[in-house]
């Protein structure tokens, strides 16, 4: 499969509101797509549609194996971070991802004690450790300090350099080379 994500004439309506109509897009290995637009324009819905968690009203979506980091952490709050992440991604990849994202020293800390920025990093560590070719990231730089944002940007660059692709929904500009899809215009 040369394309990791493909939308063909996709229309999505939520709550009776048309978010986009007859949308076509494709994403190849190494590419990055930033979905931009104001609040409520459908950025997160597009990611969920790409992930297969929503169904399009019309059109077809084809996708490679993917991982999603959205606003929901999906980690048990009472268990240590390392164990909570290991539920999703057992194995050595997790150690490497925690190290790359700067959270290795917090692996023994229960998830509920993480700050919002650390929680955001944790959800991105889950994606990085997944081994999926396609990453779907919802506001990946939200709540991150300069160090965190730099580490995430580095992980994304590395993933794309290794043949992965990234779709990032963000209302702020992302560092690096991105195609832009503007919603809500």
């Amino acid at each position, binding site marked *: 499969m040369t394309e990791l994500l493909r939308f063909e004439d996709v229309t999505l309506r939520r709550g009776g509101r048309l978010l986009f109509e007859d949308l076509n897009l494709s994403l190849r290995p190494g590419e990055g797509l930033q979905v931009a637009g104001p609040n409520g324009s459908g950025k997160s819905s597009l990611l*969920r549609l790409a*992930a*297969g*968690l*929503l*169904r399009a009203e019309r059109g077809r979506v084809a996708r490679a194996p*993917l*991982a*999603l980091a*959205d*606003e*929901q*952490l*999906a*980690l*048990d709050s*009472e268990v240590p971070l390392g164990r909570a992440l290991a*539920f*999703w991604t057992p194995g050595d990849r997790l150690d490497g991802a925690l190290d790359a994202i700067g959270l290795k020293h917090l692996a023994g800390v229960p998830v509920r004690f993480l700050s919002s920025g650390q929680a955001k990093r944790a959800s991105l560590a889950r994606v990085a450790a997944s081994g999926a070719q396609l990453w779907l990231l919802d506001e990946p730089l939200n709540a991150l300090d300069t160090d965190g944002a730099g580490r995430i940007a580095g992980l994304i660059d590395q993933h794309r350099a290794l043949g992965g692709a990234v779709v990032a929904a963000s209302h702020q500009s992302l560092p690096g080379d991105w195609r832009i899809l503007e919603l809500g215009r």
Partner: protein
Amino acid sequence: MIGSLIARDVRRGFTGAAWLPIAFFLLVATLVPFAVGPDARLLERIGPGALWIAALTAALLPIERLVEPDRADGVLDQLALHGLAEESIAFSKIVAHWLTFAPLLLVAAIPASALLAMDAASLMRAEIALAIGTPGLAALAVAVAAVTAGLPRAGSLTGLLLLPLAVPLLIFGISDALLLEAAVSLLLTAGAPFVAGAAIRASRT
């Protein structure tokens, strides 16, 4: 992944509030002698029915934490992205819920039967009936939890949905029609994952 999910939910159940429904079950069983008086013959006659009513009402308590926390926190979405069908997720939750609810309930039925002046033979019949009925009850609880997840006033709805649907288990469990009870329990256990799976999918729209 299914095994990991069951182990996770069992752990969460036991480190959470698995004792609450059991405490509630014992409390209801304790209240019955106060309500009808200390007449041992009367208590022995109504004992099995009181045990079942205590079990059904206790089964309502954990419903709100069976599905909704995982829906709200995105766990159900991530499980789907890991290739687990919603029906498999629901089945895992039924197994985990049964493991955290039924064995403790069966143990708690022993002191409860003493409070209700039940003899050993009555207790044995009640234990067997509860053992047969609790898988169906657990399946029903997960299905109701999935249907009401994210709804306003879900707590009130759960009782209105679960208790009428559990009536066949109650009737056959009390009347020693164990084969019929087993059939109902099996039907609920087989059907509930599909109901719960559809409800989980519908909650995403």
